[in-house]
């Protein structure tokens, strides 16, 4: 009797231990999945791989490019139409080397030139997360690319010019925080996809990384992250940078245009330590020397007429929020004085903000953002040019005047 009981107890104890062990492995795998989800947010996978009103990661979102329309792919674990049959090796190869499991070449609309820097462990975690989501049976739509870009072999040429395979290598001379920031910005964050000039071949040379450029098809200017006269953050406090990345608004300015999407879908989910690391790195890559102010293409008399009309337009339509001295009420009503976004050489963004208005993204840190009305229907081309010229040159701002023609051209810029 006694021995039977002790055997039973022993068996029970063994069972409990086994169960505990299993709990532990489950915990471990759910930890990996949670980390994968976090990393998938950092990589902003959803921006492309989830269509409007579509199922999570089922693809099918049209991506207009100068070469035609690319449709994003289904990355749910569906075995027929998604990545259900892929192994972790296959997934790593896609991220790291831009090739499908069968060796096929992937169009560089997928930012594998950045994702190549992602570590194997992080790639595995993202894959584990993607394996855990709801499978969706939805066939990929064929791309609609013009000749000759519909020939995937051309990608080989692009790769030779612009693709350098290799995981991120920390710089031992820098802090762990700087290196973590660099890893996120250069790798999963794929910031260089927009913040670098894109040449006619759809490529970016390494030496131009983060130097800024007009985003093809969208007609928003992605400012340089290294130049303090654009979006270089050398003169910003770490707190202002982390506020901007995490909440979408800051004492120095707010995010708008395509960057609103990045904060909305990706950056707001990063933890404080990672956000700070990105801020430290971004502040660090800003170059100390400031290039000389740009010169205006407009004749002086035209400029001064524009600027004087601009002040009238500004006082009537803008000053109630942005202040008579461009001081704003930060962070919600951004200052325009000493605002790099207003002053930088490309006037595309300030013109578009006047025409289209906009809301910063709703985030955990700023769930009910204040918005700016679109003035496209209220102001003439001349008035738009005038008010943009005024805000670019008033209050010590060092921008240049813009012409009514530039304002007119941006009326037809795509809004979505």
């Amino acid at each position, binding site marked *: 009797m006694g021995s039977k009981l002790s055997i039973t107890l022993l068996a029970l104890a063994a069972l409990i231990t086994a169960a505990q062990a299993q709990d532990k492995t489950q915990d471990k795998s759910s930890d990996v999945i949670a980390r994968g989800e976090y990393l998938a947010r950092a990589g902003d996978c959803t921006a492309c791989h989830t269509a*409007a*009103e579509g199922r999570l990661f089922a693809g099918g979102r049209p991506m207009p490019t100068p070469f035609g329309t690319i449709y994003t792919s289904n990355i749910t674990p569906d075995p027929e139409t998604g990545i259900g049959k892929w192994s972790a090796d296959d997934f790593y190869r896609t991220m790291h080397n831009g090739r499908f499991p069968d060796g096929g070449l992937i169009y560089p609309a997928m930012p594998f030139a950045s994702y190549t820097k992602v570590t194997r462990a992080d790639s595995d975690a993202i894959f584990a997360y993607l394996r855990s989501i709801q499978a969706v049976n939805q066939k990929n739509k064929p791309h609609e690319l013009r000749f000759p870009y519909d020939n995937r072999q051309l990608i080989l040429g692009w790769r030779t010019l612009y693709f350098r395979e290799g995981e991120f290598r920390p710089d031992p001379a820098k802090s762990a925080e700087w290196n973590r920031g660099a890893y996120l910005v250069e790798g999963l964050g794929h910031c260089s996809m927009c913040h670098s000039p894109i040449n006619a071949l759809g490529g970016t040379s390494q030496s131009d990384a983060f130097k800024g450029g007009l985003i093809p098809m969208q007609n928003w200017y992605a400012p340089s992250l290294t130049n303090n006269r654009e979006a270089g953050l050398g003169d910003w406090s770490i707190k202002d940078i982390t506020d901007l990345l995490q909440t979408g608004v800051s004492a120095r300015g707010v995010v708008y245009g395509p960057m*609103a*999407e990045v*904060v*909305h879908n990706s950056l707001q989910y990063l933890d404080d330590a990672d956000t700070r690391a990105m801020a430290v790195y971004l502040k660090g890559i800003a170059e100390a020397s400031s290039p000389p102010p740009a010169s205006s293409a407009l004749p002086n008399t035209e400029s001064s007429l524009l600027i004087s009309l601009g002040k009238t337009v500004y006082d009537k339509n803008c000053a109630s*929020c942005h202040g008579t001295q461009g001081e704003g*009420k*930060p962070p*919600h*009503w951004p200052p325009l004085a000493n605002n790099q976004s207003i002053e930088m050489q490309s006037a595309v963004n300030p013109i578009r903000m006047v025409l*289209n*208005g*906009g*809301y*910063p*993204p*709703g985030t955990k840190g700023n*769930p*009910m*953002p*204040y*918005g*700016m*009305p*679109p*003035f*496209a*229907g*209220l102001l003439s081309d001349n008035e738009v040019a005038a008010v943009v010229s005024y805000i670019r040159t008033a209050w010590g701002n060092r921008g240049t005047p813009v012409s009514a023609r530039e304002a007119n051209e941006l009326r037809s810029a*795509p*809004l*979505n």
Partner: protein
Amino acid sequence: MFARAAASAAVIVTLSAFDGAAAQTANQPPDTMAARVEACTPCHGNKGEGTSDVYFPRLAGKPAGYLYNQLLAFRSGRRKYPPMNYLLEFLPDPYLEAMAEYFASEHPPLPQPAPSEVSKDVLAQGEALATSGDAGRGIPACVSCHGPALTGMQPGIPGLLGLRAAYVSAQLGAWRYGTRTAKSPDCMQLVAGHLTEADVTAVAAWLATRPAPANPAPVPKGTYALPFGCGSQPN
């Protein structure tokens, strides 16, 4: 001594906290929905009453559920108007709900109906369709869903008063051509599919001539039964 120091420290902390709060309020935009929807008002009016642009609709007093559905549809791109799609793209559901409730709770007076530009015959055709429908062609009366006084019903059916003919006509056209859609069963698409262009002109013109009723508020949910199912108006 220590207690005194602690007490004065507490006072300093309290004072500076108070100062901080006051300064922040002074330097911040008003913490109100009115300030947050200023992006909407140049086109829709300060209280959502509409503006001189005949294509921009009145929002004030429409059922919050209807306004919320439209905000969701503009955000996802289901309802297409690029300036709206762009403004709403990254705003979360609870905020859109708050915006809908804000405009639903505003009650500026309805505008005086403008004199109509169409003939009496056309207006009579519009009135007949709106109040009786055309059973032979499968067209229900507008009033059978939008209410006897055309003020709409909570939570999802909009009133049709205070809208200009150009706006109603453009929307009916969009339903007919399938560029405006709603949740299935898409009742308005079914109805508009049976309308001719002449019907659209007539109905839009007659609706724009309607004076404000004594009570312009949408009637409560379930006040009357709908003639058929409608995805935007859950039972």
